[in-house]
């Protein structure tokens, strides 16, 4: 599968649009889902997801096969989605009535509508923290991000990850545990920084 993907990447790098179409087809849903998770509305998510795909085509010649294509792709996808969200937030800061960002001066991603339901304090705080998960994902190391993408976004099994990264299943588990722990730590730091 990787060989086919690599051939498509090579063709797409030379400007072959059809090859890029085949290459991106398997990732479109995930890209759109990331955009939706960040923007929380279909219209913006659609436009941003399209923009992400075009950006990937434009930047494809920068891909050097040093990491897995999916890791590279999701990193660009999350970065672009977060950047676009920040731009939009800056534009509409004074307009939104229901939007209640944690801190309008902070660049971190926030959800648009505050959940007013009667929830326990921990659950509320947790939801607030989750707003920064896409930011946090870009703050952790490449190895940690890669394995989280493979497991949580691409929903691959330990065995599949083990084959793809050419490491043992035990290593996959321990690395994934450390990666999630690191992500949680960064998330908490961003959250605390935002409270200050």
């Amino acid at each position: 599968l990787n060989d086919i993907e690599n051939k498509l990447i090579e063709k797409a790098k030379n400007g072959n649009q059809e090859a890029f179409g085949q290459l991106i087809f398997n990732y479109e849903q995930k890209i759109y889902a990331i955009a939706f998770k960040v923007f929380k509305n279909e219209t913006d998510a659609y436009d941003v997801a399209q923009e992400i795909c075009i950006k990937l085509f434009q930047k494809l010649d920068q891909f050097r096969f040093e990491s897995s294509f999916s890791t590279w792709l999701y990193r660009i996808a999350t970065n672009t989605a977060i950047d676009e969200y920040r731009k939009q937030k800056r534009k509409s800061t004074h307009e939104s009535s229901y939007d209640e960002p944690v801190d309008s001066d902070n660049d971190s991603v926030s959800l648009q509508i505050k959940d007013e339901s009667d929830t326990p304090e921990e659950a509320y705080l947790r939801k607030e923290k989750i707003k920064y998960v896409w930011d946090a994902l870009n703050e952790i190391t490449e190895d940690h991000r890669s394995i989280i993408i493979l497991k949580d976004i691409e929903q691959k099994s330990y065995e599949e990850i083990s084959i793809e990264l050419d490491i043992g299943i035990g290593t996959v588990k321990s690395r994934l545990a450390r990666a999630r722990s690191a992500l949680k730590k960064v998330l908490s730091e961003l959250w605390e920084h935002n409270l200050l």
Partner: protein
Amino acid sequence: MNHCGHEIKELLPLYVDHDLTEEEMLIVENHIKDCEECHIDLELYQSIHDELDLDDIKLPENFHHELMNKLALENETKEINAYQTSFFVKYMRYINLVALFTVVVFIGLAGLNRTSKSDMELATFDTSTTERVATESTNESSANEEVTTSEASTSEEESVEMKSEVAVMQAEETSEEAMLEAPVANEESIAETTTENTAETMQETTADSTADSTAENTQDSMLEAPAVAVEPTLESNEKMMITAEEDMTVDNSINNSESTLTTNGTNATLESENIVNQNWFLWMFGGILVIVLLGSLVVILLIKKKSALNKKS
């Protein structure tokens, strides 16, 4: 808190995958019952996991189709941008200006050249007229030799006749002195006279020369005749001899004049050919420039049209 070992810290992040062994699952579940901190952490891990789970979001149907259309458009725009930023198109405006300026200069040069060509045609015409007059003079001189008189139908020839008579008179007056001089000296004198006449003819017979110059040469030649007409044989028939010498000198000068005129005429023809060649080159150069100018204008129009279409789409 105190019993949160390394094992629990490593199992908690993996618990959300539900991929632990039954024994590991029990260890975690039993632990979080007593440890609030680990319980909070586990909920946070679960929230992260849920946030990163993208499978429950459906992709809109036309997403791929629209993306491919946008990419095709993007590719076209990229190609157009690449073309527009190329050297030729980038400096098209300046190239057009230079071409336009060159065409204007060319038209000016062509106009000037046309004027000079007309001048040369006139000069050639004058030269041919000179040749014609010279030939006529030669014929008339020959007639004089045969008749041994200085009668002529043209005014130039009358002048020559008058000069000849004057020469005869002078020759009569100086006949005795001439008798004393050696024949060798006379011969040298003839040679000198002829050379002088030739030189004068060469100087005077230019592209702008007219038939008058030939007449003057003839006159000059005739004026030189007295010096020539110092033959020892003048004792018995001085007039006849002087006339004969005169005619010989006139013949020489006319011959020289003719040869000079022919040379000048050839040069004029060559110059005329050169000008024609220059004209041909200029016209060709100008034609190429006009084609380039028109071609570049067409290219600009095409690009603008394409850009307008892209903007519309």
